[in-house]
């Protein structure tokens, strides 16, 4: 006996997740086609935060463009500062004094800690564990206090400039930072235990949003996303800048490629950042922090690009000069832009709840995606 069944189809539902949605982390819109709760297709719509920063930069002298970069990746603005500062230094052949290089590494790693803490908190919140959010923001608050003592700002620091860092560390900074790191490592272990050992958390993360090695490479994934997919690609190691070649740190690599792997890469990276910060504090030589740049800075015609490892991945800045005071083109390679591009390939077949987990694990910042 054969049993013939006719499929009862119901029309799919188009759901606009965002631009106002609690879990898109900014103004991202995902147009998803749903069959029940299963996603059939997804088309990310970006540009809600597009401010034309790159165009604005073309109308300003090189060094005036650094503050704009604070608004790119606003969770790690020092890392964005570094990208354009390095590009300006390369195009103008400026060498940063050694102490300035150490300070940059120090500041960037502190900022990486802050950014990854935001990831930890928001990712847990996306999965429903609200408590970790407040814990990690409490730690971040102390980092912000430290950075405020250094730079005077809490979010948009504008403190890594072309040529170095404008001031030296404030008094007692090193001791405060060390004291913080001493406590932070225990706190981090605690939060890590709270989440990593949790069965629900694992069920929501393991095997979800798998990005294969091939996919990660072809889509230009970088940073923790690539390293969660088994690609040991870290600009700090493959093309060391500043004094990263003198630092001793490991690059965490996980091969699973799922949300859990990306989460673990970031947690491990925080430990490594703490290592780097301690080394910087220990080994930093005395001296100037900033190279003198001419008042009227006119680099020779040509183009230059920088490669830096921001908390989100490879952040690079492309500059082209025609010999005048202003750049003719500034372009940022925003890692989040590439990671969002992965979504149409990753999402089909997953459930609505997984979209949130996947998006959270990519840790995108729409400021740098939209520019």
């Amino acid at each position, binding site marked *: 006996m054969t049993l013939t069944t006719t499929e009862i189809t119901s029309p799919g539902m188009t759901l606009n997740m965002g631009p106002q949605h609690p879990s898109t982390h900014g103004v991202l819109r995902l147009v998803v086609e749903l069959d029940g709760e299963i996603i059939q297709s997804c088309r990310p719509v970006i540009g809600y935060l597009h401010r034309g920063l790159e165009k604005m930069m073309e109308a300003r002298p090189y060094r005036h463009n650094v503050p704009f970069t604070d608004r790119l990746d606003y969770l790690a603005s020092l890392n964005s500062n570094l990208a354009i500062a390095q590009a300006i230094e390369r195009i103008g052949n400026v060498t940063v004094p050694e102490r300035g290089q150490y300070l940059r590494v120090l500041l960037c790693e502190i900022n990486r800690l802050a950014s990854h803490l935001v990831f930890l908190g928001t990712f847990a919140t996306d999965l429903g564990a609200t408590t970790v959010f407040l814990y990690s923001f409490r730690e971040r608050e102390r980092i912000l206090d430290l950075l405020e003592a250094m730079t005077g700002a809490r979010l948009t620091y504008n403190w890594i400039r072309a040529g170095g860092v404008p001031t030296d560390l404030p008094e007692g900074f090193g001791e405060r930072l060390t004291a913080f790191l001493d406590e932070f490592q225990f706190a981090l272990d605690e939060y890590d235990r709270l989440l990593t050992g949790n069965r629900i958390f694992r069920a929501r993360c393991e095997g979800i949003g798998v990005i294969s090695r091939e996919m990660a490479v072809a889509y230009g994934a970088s940073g923790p996303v690539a390293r969660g997919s088994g690609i040991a690609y870290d600009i700090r190691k493959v093309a060391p800048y500043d004094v990263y070649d003198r630092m001793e740190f490991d690059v965490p690599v996980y091969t699973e490629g799922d949300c859990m792997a990306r989460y673990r890469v970031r947690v491990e990276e925080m430990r490594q950042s703490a290592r780097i910060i301690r080394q910087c504090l220990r080994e930093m030589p005395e001296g100037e922090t900033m190279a003198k740049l001419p008042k009227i800075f006119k680099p020779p015609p040509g183009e230059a690009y920088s490669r830096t490892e921001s908390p989100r991945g490879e952040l690079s800045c492309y500059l082209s000069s025609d010999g005048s005071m202003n750049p003719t083109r500034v372009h940022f390679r925003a890692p989040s832009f590439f990671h969002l*591009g992965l979504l149409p390939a990753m999402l089909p077949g997953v459930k609505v709840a997984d979209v949130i987990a996947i998006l959270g694990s990519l840790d995108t910042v729409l400021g740098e995606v939209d520019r």
Partner: protein
Amino acid sequence: MSAILTRIQQQFGEALLQAQGGENETRLTVSPDALRPLCETLRSDPALAFGYIADMTARDTGEQFILWYRLVSMSSLHTLILTVALPRDHPQVVSLADLWPGLNWLERECFDLFGIRFAGHPDQEDPARMRILLPEDWEGFPFRKDYAPVFSGNPLHGPQETN
């Protein structure tokens, strides 16, 4: 002269308008016609294996558009910078989004900001779908040097192009 540049020159000697090889970085300038075969080789030749698209952007020199690709080989960690000049009046180039899916959005961005057309891009038929950063119905390409915004009254519809 690096081994990578030698290998590329063996196959595409005459297509390269300019070539410069360093230890970690190779810079090539090619004509738009040679772009596709060159890239196919760059991607598939096991000795080159430039599987990673690191960046791509365009700039407007006033006379022409310069496309700038940055590729990385994951095996040798070698960087390859590829420059293509396009005529300003009819900027069109072949799309490489099928070789590196990561290029899909970058090409859309170049269309969005510069109006460069990418033949073979999955969204090329519909300009509204090609737009990525700007609103779908924006008029003009703001990163061109001759773009002069005129406020049309509705910020959502974008300024009109004057010329």
